[in-house]
């Protein structure tokens, strides 16, 4: 894949899966290749996703020396029983260690992933997890409600009655408490599941939600350039062979019409607290969402799921938890 001459790269993200298990020499090759072939912005955001138990002090120092300036740690929970339920291989101690050494090595931009709604999780156990990570000096946190996804072991256990799903009322209570705690620590929500201290919103993920261009490398990686979306083969062997023979590993491509692109901009943009600007969508695609979906927008405003401000529409607090009802109106 080639970059257009003159394109500036504002973010690099090593992630999806566990890149921290990659030997540092291999990682160095990848990073060198990127540096050689791309124009990087001065304020580049360079993230690596790591899983507790796969890193140590030396590795993290090496990452910093490579220019990586943001670390995203898949903590999920700090209760061992909950981690086992989720099928995670690390312990709560390893998770805390990962966080501590990241700070020690000097990472100033640290993000943590947490999950709530785990079977048998309580308000107390969640509070402990949340406060323990926040106390260690994060800049960013992603918090997801547990989803029982078809095909996963947890989904199977649920269907066999082997796990007790958290009652919805408790899940909502935890969600509300979480907002208060985060507020106290100076975090604000900027995307449905993401919170940051002022100025630390993940620049990388914002490109997805704003429908901006990105290039993906590696098996299964997706890219979006303008209105063309494509993905690489998920088969690692095939991927290696294709690339070695100088062929494209792309196996799928989708060209979005202006209307499709516009709808996507709305659905993704509405995930953000700032919502989406109707005039920006119009400038990018020539489609007037405000006109085409005027009835849908009226209805959603009436249902108090979104609100209008100037030319923007954005989720209300209620709408943030019922996003699918909102997105569904723009399909």
């Amino acid at each position, binding site marked *: 894949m080639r970059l257009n001459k003159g394109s500036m790269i504002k973010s690099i993200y090593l992630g999806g899966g566990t890149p921290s298990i990659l030997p540092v020499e291999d990682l160095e090759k990848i990073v060198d290749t990127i540096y050689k072939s791309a124009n990087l912005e001065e304020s580049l955001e360079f993230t690596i996703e790591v899983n507790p138990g796969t890193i140590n002090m030396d590795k993290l120092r090496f990452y910093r020396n490579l220019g990586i300036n943001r670390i995203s740690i898949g903590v999920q929970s700090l209760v061992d029983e909950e981690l086992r339920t989720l099928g995670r291989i690390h312990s709560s101690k390893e998770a805390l260690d990962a966080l501590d050494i990241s700070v020690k090595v000097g990472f100033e931009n640290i993000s943590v992933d947490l999950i709530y709604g785990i079977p048998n999780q309580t308000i107390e156990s969640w509070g402990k997890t949340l406060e323990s990570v926040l106390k260690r000096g994060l800049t960013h946190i992603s918090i*997801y409600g547990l989803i029982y996804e078809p095909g996963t072991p947890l989904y199977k256990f649920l269907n066999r009655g082997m796990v007790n799903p958290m009652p919805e009322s408790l899940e909502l209570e935890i969600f509300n408490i979480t907002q208060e705690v985060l507020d106290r620590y100076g975090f604000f929500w900027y995307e449905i599941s993401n919170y940051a201290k002022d100025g630390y919103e993940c620049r990388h993920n914002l490109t997805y939600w704003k429908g901006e261009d990105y290039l993906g490398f590696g098996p*299964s*990686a997706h890219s979006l350039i303008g209105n063309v*979306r494509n993905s690489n083969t998920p088969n690692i062997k095939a991927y290696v062979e294709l690339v070695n023979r100088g062929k494209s590993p792309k196996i799928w491509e989708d060209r979005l019409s202006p209307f499709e692109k516009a709808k996507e901009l709305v659905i993704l943009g509405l995930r953000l607290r700032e919502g989406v600007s109707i005039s920006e969508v119009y400038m990018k695609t020539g489609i007037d969402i405000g006109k085409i979906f005027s009835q849908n927008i009226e209805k959603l405003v009436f249902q108090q799921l979104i609100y209008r401000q100037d030319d923007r529409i954005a989720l209300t607090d209620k709408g*943030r938890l019922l996003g*699918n*009802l909102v997105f*569904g109106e723009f*399909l």
Partner: protein
Amino acid sequence: MKLSNIRNFSIIAHIDHGKSTLADRFLEKTNSMPKKKIAEEQVLDQMDLERERGITIKSHPVRMYYVLGDEEYELHLIDTPGHVDFSYEVSRSLAACEGAILVVDATQGIEAQTLANYNLALENGLTLIPVINKIDLPGAEVERVKRQLIDSLGFLEEEILLVSAKEGIGIDHLLRAIIDRIPSPKGDLNKSLEALIFDAYFDLYRGVVVYTRIFNGIVRKGMNIKMMSTGAVYEVDEVGYFSFGLHPTESLMAGEVGYIIANIKNIKDAQVGDTITDANSPVEKPLPGFKRIKPMVYCGLFPQEPNQYEDLRESLEKLQLNDPALVFEPENSEALGPGFRCGFLGTLHMEIVEERLEREYGVKLVATAPNVVYRVHTKDGNILEINNPSQFPNYGLIEKVEEPYVKVSIISPSDFIGPIMELCLGKRGTLIEMNYIDPMKVVFIYELPLSEVIFDFFDKLKSVTRGYASLDYEPIGFKESDLVRLEILVKGETVDALSIIVHRDEAERRGREIVKKLRTLIPRQLFEIPLQAAVNGKIIARENIPPLKKNVLQKCYGGDVTRKKKLLEKQKEGKKRLKQIGQVEVPQEAFLAILKSE
């Protein structure tokens, strides 16, 4: 053909006892059709639906020629419908015959429809030839079935023929028995025309093709005929017989079975059971047994998409051209919008119509739960026939209510006597009789409200007898019952399409069941939805659907976008199948939820 060389007969049997295969063998033995066609099996069941369900819906007469000794015989086989919904049509087909072959499966023995058909044949004075079929199967219990035929139906051992229609065993004997035992038709060519209509269908180009059996006289082209029930007169255009298509002949004579085409535009003018006579010298009275077809079961049919209303009307009209038993009138439901209240002979007939509308005419339907016709005597002395629960008068106006009852016969292995009696009791049944067909098999005669039988009786019967019981029934008229209208309220509004008529003692249990079921079927919405069941304005059951609080894709990043969009699209597809009732979106299944109890 002289009368003494004609035989008119039917094959009667319980479902799957091998009636159609036997008919195929006859066609083969008499060289009535090319071999290739027989290979396709069961050529007489012509409609796709008939083949799929393994049942016959229409009558299929066929003429065969068979040589025995020095004589050639003309055999008319009238294949009859094989379901209780069509028992009137069966009885008229049987009335067109002098004899019938009673087929019993050697592995199953006598079943409920064996008995019902046997009784119909006797009522029509037919000569019966008992046949035990499938004698080649490993599970065949020939001796046991023989004893059943002798002990329960009064046949003599030497009358019983052993056959395997599939393997072609015993077919020649059977054909000989038809000629030897079934009387030739009697009739007088010189008398006035007297012919029975036993079926009819509508041909787009030729109008109604009437299936008829001539009892006296003769019918030929150009003659003026009169339908005795309506008095309508038609000029005969063509007569002939059936043998895989229509074969025109000069005339049809007393004793023969064939068809008449007389430029009849509406199938309702050729009613099954009616008598055709010579318009110029009519007979004095019609043949016995004529009944006007009356629907037994009603339901509302509504288009899923309101813009398919006209399509639905046209489709129903087209179906009605060939199905005089189907009736319909426009119905406007507050909940489901414009549609039709349709009447059927029974639930099978209803299912067939629904399936044909969807399959052949491409109309997507919302069907309400079926109900019977109620006779309401009001305090001011009127008698109302109610075929729609939402039109049931208010409690205060009702003097008494009557509902149709049926005589049900159930045949089952004797192991299940207890569960069957319990089931029938729960369905408000009265035991009339219980007899042993043999030490292992019992026949029950019950009187039950038809509404209970069409509700989920058959499924329940199958389940308590592990599929071994068989069932047949016939209407026996109306009886007084303590019936009330059970109303269902969704968010405070009565949903007319969800109302049902139930016995007062059952109202609370059914009400509770229905709201419970609806609670699982109606998706949560932005507000709380109370579900209530009420009788005479009094709430007897209540459930709440709590408001939807959380429904959001938690994660959505670069690689996910396409997959997540598909997920959202799937959610949206699901929403499309919802009907808006007031503020509440209700799925189609909800309207059928009241069909089955737990």
